[in-house]
């Protein structure tokens, strides 16, 4: 097992390197760069600057980006092992001071959403498979299809509108006003938990819908297999018949979805965060991309991808634990 984990982890290293290269190229794509924007701003304020080239060179030297793209890439990536991700031009701070809080909240939302999605898909999937073509089943598939069809940002807008209508204040942000700049405490954590359910519902709905369908389909297939009849004829109580045999089979496809669910959750939470103005990665990434703040944007992109790589790794390990055929092959 340990060997399997080790081998699996080793495989993801070249993937990580490729991702870092793609991230770096991506943020260099826009024509012009931060320095151009900065200089044109300076020119508007102070029209008397005559030697634009000298100014550019001095800024570039100060920001340490005067070398070629390849050299810049190696400078950036070699800082990674010791937690140095470059310098944010917009915020005038090292990147690593800026990202951890946002990434932590992104991780928190993604993780809770994942747990919420998996548990609700697990139970609702079993229930609908046991009582198919009933009112409950139809209601679930109706909302499931709706959940798949409504874009995340629209669902967020809708919930904001409803909370304005019902509670008088639109839902937004992740903290109550008194906690925004407060240091982390028990009270702040509880406050976050009070706010976090709306983004979780918004981000989780589509995933839950598709996972219920997967769980229901595999359960339906398994429920009519002879071994279930055998278990029942042995006189096992109904709940044991269900939980002990078919559910064990049906959990494997559910676990294998974690791998592709994670990128979806991360990207879903990015857009929802922008709409609901949550202090997570989404809005900051957008702002950094617009401002061509290349190290900040690149690090965010890279870290989000790393988050999903780790998630895929974990899902593979869980799968291997669940299914000996995978771990031994």
């Amino acid at each position, binding site marked *: 097992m340990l060997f399997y984990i080790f081998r699996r982890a080793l495989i993801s290293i*070249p993937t990580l390197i490729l991702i870092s290269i793609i991230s770096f190229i991506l943020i260099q794509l*826009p024509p012009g760069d931060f320095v151009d924007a900065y200089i044109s701003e300076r020119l508007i304020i102070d029209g008397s600057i005559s030697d634009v080239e000298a100014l550019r060179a001095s800024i570039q030297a100060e920001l340490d980006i005067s070398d070629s793209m390849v050299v810049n890439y190696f400078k950036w990536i070699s800082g990674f092992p010791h937690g140095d991700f470059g310098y944010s031009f917009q915020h005038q701070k090292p990147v690593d001071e800026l990202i951890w809080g946002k990434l932590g909240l992104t991780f928190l939302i993604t993780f809770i959403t994942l747990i919420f999605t998996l548990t609700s898909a697990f139970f609702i999937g079993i229930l609908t498979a046991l009582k198919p073509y009933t009112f409950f089943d139809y209601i679930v598939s109706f909302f499931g299809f709706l959940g798949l*069809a409504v874009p995340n940002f*629209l669902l967020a807008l809708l919930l904001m509108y409803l909370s304005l209508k019902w509670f008088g204040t639109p839902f937004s942000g992740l903290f109550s006003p008194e906690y925004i700049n407060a240091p982390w405490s028990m009270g702040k954590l509880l406050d976050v938990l009070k706010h976090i359910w709306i983004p979780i519902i918004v981000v989780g709905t589509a995933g839950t819908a598709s996972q219920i369908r997967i769980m229901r389909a595999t359960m339906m297939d398994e429920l009519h297999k002879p071994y279930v009849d055998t278990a029942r004829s042995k006189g096992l109580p109904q709940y044991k018949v269900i939980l002990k045999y078919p559910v064990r089979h049906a959990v494997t496809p559910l676990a294998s979805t974690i791998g592709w669910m994670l*990128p979806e959750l991360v*990207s*879903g939470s*990015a857009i929802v965060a922008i709409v609901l103005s949550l202090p997570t990665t989404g809005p900051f*990434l957008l702002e950094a991309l617009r401002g061509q703040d290349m190290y900040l944007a690149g690090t965010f992109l890279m870290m989000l*991808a790393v988050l999903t790589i780790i998630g895929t790794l974990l899902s593979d390990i869980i799968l291997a634990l669940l299914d000996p055929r995978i771990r031994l092959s």
Partner: protein
Amino acid sequence: MTTTYPVGQSGSPKAFDADLKEQQEDRGSDIFYASKSRLMWLRFKQHKVALFSGVMICLFYLVAIFANFISVKDINSFSAKFKYVSPTEIHFFDEEGDFTRPFIYNLDRKINMETLEYEYTQGDTTYPIKFFHKGYSYKFLWMFETDRHLMGVDEGAALFLMGSDKLGRDIFSKVVHGARISLSIGLVGVFLSLVFGVILGGISGFYGGKVDTVIQRLIEVLMSFPSIPLWMALAASLPPHWSPLIVYFMITLILSLIGWTGIARVVRGIVMRLKEEKYTEAAVLSGAGNFYIIRKHLLPGATSFVIAHATLSIPAMIIAETSLSFLGIGLRPPVVSWGVLLQEAQSITVIANYPWILYPAFFVIATVLFFNFLGDGLRDAADPYMNRA
């Protein structure tokens, strides 16, 4: 539900009835001789929801094609007189309660001195809705000039089926025009994904070995990127001064950059399976060239699956375009797409006061639902030889 085709009762006296005869041919023992496409059509027909969705999607595309004819007002004509007018009520019964041709009332406008905003109340002059009414002139089907529209009202009243926006533009007309961009971006994007996906997936499955490993690794890397941040990065890199047409194509290209990976995997799987089939082996042994085998033995088997998968990936593209445009990094005005229209709904106070600006969202959701149902039906029909439980 196991699909079985009942054997027709031959020799019944009604067999000469043409309708019944055709029905019998459909379900009768002919089923054993029916071609694959016929079997698929029979299987697809059973899926009533998919059939209905297919019809609705065709309808949506027709609306998009005839957008100018169906829209009431020129989408660029704005009017300060009609800011945020709520959807016009259409009446079918006159004051005596008799059923008449549909008509509307004119709008009375006065300024609310507290908020300094216009307030609109229903006037008492009636205006019938006229069909094939004369409106702004346009080129019908990009060919000849005309000024006839599906409906309209005479000067003096304003017909806003879905209300108007902050510049007094008709939301209904904009939704109809937005359908052109929003619906075509899915098709163009999926077409591009198909081209990349079929070629790369096909190569990957056909040659296997090192080529396969490289392509699979590439797909894994692309799939592990969270798509929206990746799209955001790419879309933000489009220079703002580019013409709307180029931006449109770049956005579709960006969307299909990830879209092809799913199709490539499907194609690879099918090609690998079909390569093992006896008939392919026989063709290889009798010295057929690679191209011949791909064209004769692999492509026909893969087409239906690929079409089904492509249909299922159109809604994701539509949602992606809408989301990007909503955030302001996709398409930008003056281009009209459903996502661009929803940009106006970014502020919660605007939504609370003028909820009708969310109408475009309804069409996004409907389109996505219909495409999902259609894709489900196509997928079930893609392999008519398999009995699904």
